[in-house]
């Protein structure tokens, strides 16, 4: 249904959703957005190098949606020599991610930076989109 908009031009339901997310963030790390978080969500696989510059991770319940986007962001890091992801079998909801760095930083640091950068990107895309919707320089019917 056409959602109500408050005076800021932002649809109220999205604000409610934002509040929901903020509320859950304020809670002690327990996300209930889609059920409890599996403690096995991300694990380091055996076969990491001694100094931690090369490692493989296994992420459950994720697929190309996060895998490809995360791989792109991690590759944008100049300290990363190699980053690739694979889905070992389509029937199993798991994704393997391998990161190898040149030695300045560890693989875990590269992963964390990649996640932070992706979150930064999402924030900016959302801000720009909201601004564009509010600016209203578009037609409201399908040509």
């Amino acid at each position, binding site marked *: 249904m056409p959602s109500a908009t408050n005076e800021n031009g932002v649809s109220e339901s999205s604000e409610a959703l934002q509040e929901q997310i903020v509320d859950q963030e304020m809670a002690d790390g327990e996300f209930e957005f889609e059920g409890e978080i599996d403690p096995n969500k991300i694990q380091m696989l055996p076969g990491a190098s001694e100094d931690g510059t090369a490692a493989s991770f296994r992420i459950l319940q994720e697929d190309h949606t996060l895998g490809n986007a995360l791989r792109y962001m991690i590759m944008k890091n100049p300290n990363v020599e190699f980053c690739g992801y694979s889905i070992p079998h389509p029937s199993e909801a798991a994704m393997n991610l391998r990161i190898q760095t040149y030695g300045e930083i560890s693989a875990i640091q590269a992963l964390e930076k990649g996640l932070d950068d992706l*979150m930064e990107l999402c*924030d900016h895309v959302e801000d720009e989109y909201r601004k564009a919707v509010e600016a209203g320089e578009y037609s409201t019917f399908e040509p």
Partner: protein
Amino acid sequence: MVDNISAQRNRVGIEHDRVTNVSSTDFPGYYPGEDQAWNIDKFKKNFKIQISYLSDISSSFDLVGNDASIANAFRRIMISEVPTLAIEYVYVENNTSIIQDEVLAHRLGLIPLKANPDYLRWFKKDDPDIEPTDYDTVVLHLSAKCTANPNPPPGTTDPKVLYNNANVYASAIKFEPQGRQAEWFPDGITATNPDILIAKLRPGQEIDLTMHCILGIGQDHAKFSPVATASYRLLPTIDIIGPPLTGPLAQKFKSCFPEGVIAINSKGEAYVKDARKDTVSREVLRHSEFEGRVKLGRQRDHFIFNIESTGAMTPDEIFIKSVQLLKRKCQILRKFDLRT
């Protein structure tokens, strides 16, 4: 122009039998001496969103400056991971119609409901001890009975005249507010389109059932997908190389593309007026006269999104939720401490 180095990098080449230069190459180390590292300020400078139209049902907008992996992530999340409300459990009291119970239940599940999914919590399906509450379940009721018209005009065969209530439409579904749902959903919960035909009845047949609706995502069942579809295409580019085309050749060139893509200027030369309207049928590559004179391609970082909503949420809400969900996925992973 094709001579420009950065334009060349940005172009996916389209030949008559294949596409070239498909993968993105903007990674550090690929071009020696260049700094291609992730920089939020550089990204902000190049990033642009332009909305073509935004109605309650569909929207088309341009996303410029992103990589295909991110745009695809948004598209995939819109289709399969934005939660919506749909009928999940159907409790059949009486069904003497010709439609089998399970077929009727399947059809009911596919009806898109006009409900704001933000007001509901997730219902844990697998746990047998958990009872549905007003927080997570919406109860709907459908009751229809077909009777014969006692005095039909003689000789008609129109079922609308001969029978009462022969067609059961989605408008017949009644919302039964539980607990505090009357204040959360003051307008009630109905199907997005009241004219959806659910079943056809004849005199003496009746349907009486109760339905429970819960939140779900498209990955679980396609009925939970909030979009009819969400897709994107890359902006096509047409470059005329060498001397401009004139005369009858220009006319033929113009006819190889859809209306409005190519125009003829006052000097009789063909020029590219609006490459965006092109559907990239590659018709021009089939004619030997134009060999070497035109180069087709697509711009790798310019995505033209098209979102068609089923009616539960507006397209801008769906896109915003999809971006927030991608961020949420990263947040969840970020909270783990892998060093232990």
